[in-house]
């Protein structure tokens, strides 16, 4: 379309005009972030201020974020329900990789899961957190599908187990918030013991919310990946696998 060029030019000029009014790079003068850098560690005992912000100061944003992911997974399931149904018509066989590839793959699965879990566990102390760990763990679980026969992967993919787990993760976030409300404080108030700064037992609710979101993200990503993979790779039928 002819007007795209001028439009982009106009938008670009607006950007340029706005950015000329920004403080020079590196001259950020706060105050919001600086205040948090000062108060989060003493008040919440989490050394990672970003996670302290994500799961405590602005915890309700993250609750919304969990549900965005949740709604996306539900939405993708809804949109691809015909694809999954019509897969019966076009089953194709898939070659299994040889043993070496399988071994390497399984090692990678193990590695991915371990790193994922580590990211989840230490998220509020060092960089990482429920989301990063969850995506990685989900990727590792999906690798099982690629390197192993589909049966290794089946239990992970089973919606009967995954849906409730995902709901538990997202719903758990809300329940932690409601528990605070029920105890007479504000929604998502940090209720539990704050523990020693810099250890796994620090942060109070932050740790719980971090795990809730880790579960929710892992399940959501496995479901999302599976929904897409299933639409093109169809597992071997039992009678085919003998050949």
């Amino acid at each position, binding site marked *: 379309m002819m007007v795209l060029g001028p439009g982009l030019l106009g938008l670009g000029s607006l950007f340029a*005009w706005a950015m000329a009014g*920004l403080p020079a790079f590196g001259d950020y003068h706060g105050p919001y972030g600086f205040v948090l850098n000062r108060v989060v560690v003493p008040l919440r005992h989490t050394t990672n201020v970003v996670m302290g912000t994500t799961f405590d100061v602005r915890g309700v944003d993250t609750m919304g974020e969990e549900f965005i992911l949740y709604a996306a997974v539900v*939405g993708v399931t809804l*949109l691809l329900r015909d694809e999954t149904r019509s897969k019966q018509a076009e089953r194709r066989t898939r070659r299994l990789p040889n043993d070496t590839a399988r071994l390497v793959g399984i090692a990678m699965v193990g590695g991915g899961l371990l790193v994922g879990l580590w990211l989840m566990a230490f998220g509020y102390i060092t960089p990482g957190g429920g989301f990063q760990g969850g995506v990685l763990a989900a990727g590792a679980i999906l690798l099982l599908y690629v390197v192993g026969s589909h049966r290794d992967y089946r239990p992970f993919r089973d919606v009967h187990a995954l849906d409730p787990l995902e*709901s538990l993760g997202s*719903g758990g976030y809300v329940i932690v918030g409601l528990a605070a409300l029920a105890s007479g404080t504000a929604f998502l108030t940090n209720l539990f013991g704050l523990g020693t700064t810099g250890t796994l037992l620090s942060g109070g609710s932050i740790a719980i919310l971090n795990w809730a979101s880790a579960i929710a993200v892992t399940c959501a990503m496995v479901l999302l990946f599976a929904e897409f993979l299933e639409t093109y790779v169809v597992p071997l039928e039992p009678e085919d696998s003998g050949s």
Partner: protein
Amino acid sequence: MSWIPPLLVAIPLLAAAATAGLDHVTPQPVQDALVIGASAATTALAFVLLWHAEDHEVVHWFGGWQPKHGVALGVDFAVGPLAAGMCVVIGIVVTLSLLYALTFLREAARLFDALMLAALGAMCGFAMSGDLFNLFVWLELMAVAAYALTGFQVERLGPVQGAVNFAITNTLGGYLFVVGIALIYARTGALNLAQIGKALAHGPAGGLVIVAMTLLLCGFLIKGAVVPFHLWAADAYAVAPAPVCAVLGGVMTDIGLIGVARLYWTVFAVPFGQGHGVGDVLLWLGLVTAVLAGTMAFLQRHLKRMLAYSVVCHIGIMLAGIGLLDTSGLAGTELMFLAHALLTASLFFVAGILHVDHGLIDELHLRGRGRGCWAPAVAWFAGTIGLIGTPYVGIYLGHGLIDDGASELGRSWVPALLWLGSALAGAALLRAGARIFLGWGDDEDELLGRAIEEDPLERAVRRPILVGVALVAVVLGVAISVVPGLGQRAEYAAGRFRDTSGYAARILHDRAMPAPGSLPVTIQHTSVDSLLYASGATIFALGLAFAGLYRRRMPRALAPPVRVLHSLHSGVVGDYVTWVVVGTAVTGGVWAILLR
């Protein structure tokens, strides 16, 4: 009572998680009860909240992060009567839609229910939030749920196209919004709306603030389907299932406007509140939207597409009400929101009933098929009359207050254009109703372009539920203008909403807002002008509908502009994105000239 606001979000979201999670465990009736119960409970709590918000702004600081020394660290929900009223309407419309869908969309019920509840929670959160980034989170949540719901009928291409266009344009709107957030944050170092407003009080506004405002408001205007960002709306609403349309068209589109009003009166009224530059652009966008979308509605034969343009037309009128920047205008917008949400929902419900009964959604194909369907016919005509704003019916009071606002500012030509818009849209709906339920007119019309049909979703429905829900919605919507005391309360709520410094003091320093005196409980009357305009619009709409039914051929002079209008709404997403870019650039350019 500050514990209520988070519940309006927590209850629907928790129920959304539970309904999908417990699907294989609990039987269907329990599921249905859970879903409807959660939605109804949210609505009931919203009523309680409205009751309390009348006296003072109900503020909830998440995580107990109250502001210290006037610096906000956490995220807050701040609820005045206007926001609480929005939550009530949202709750009612979603609950009615869920009831309507009880026997309607059983094929993927749990997914549908989960998405509807997520959208409910997100819309309530959006209406109440007092934090810039938090607004974005709820905006995206309701959007993600809505994209998927739009594409519900995956066995046809139309819904997929509608969902694609909806998703891409609105996602782009979200990105514009985030860039706006980054700019504002760099300048003020705050995300809380009151805090940002306070920070902007010092020093000249400059280009950064003007551009940031452009990006933030355009993000909402895309969501609100304002011309030239409206192109996705018709594609999306024409194809979504009727109960989804009722939620999208009834409340979710309109809520973008509440975002515009919220941002203006908490943040941008501080640097730009002296002049009328911001408001005038919104006013003109609203006027163009009202007239253009009204015309487009008249050129449609697909009922839901016609309704989509009717929604966009009324969005224009409401935006104009906000653009007047005075209490009457905002109060009018608020009352129109109430009536419009319920009436639009009821009309979408009736369109869904026709679709179920006859497997058709095309005005010309349906000609005469609705004869004898009394209840849907009554709902359709009552809803239409209510949407035109015939004196003391439906949107009339809201429209009248917008008229008052305009004439107080000495802009007496504004009401004429706005009434023209609602008359055009109303004429289209009247014409369709007369053709379908009375069998009037021809079953051919060159003006209306080619037919678009779609398959009905399901036939095993309990029709009485559908009809009952449609009737409830229409009765509530029609009565809005004559509820005693509602007009006065809307004006009071609008006055509170516009109190920028009072809001900031309440949020940042926990200072109480002035308590209202006792408000009268009588029917609000409007000026004689509005009475005349409304009568004129009704007569004009009837005449135009009649002409639409019985005119022999289209006047030749009209053919080229009609063709241009049709071709602009091309259905191709690349064009829509171009319009988003151009619209944003032009809006920003105009503001740059007016406000610098």
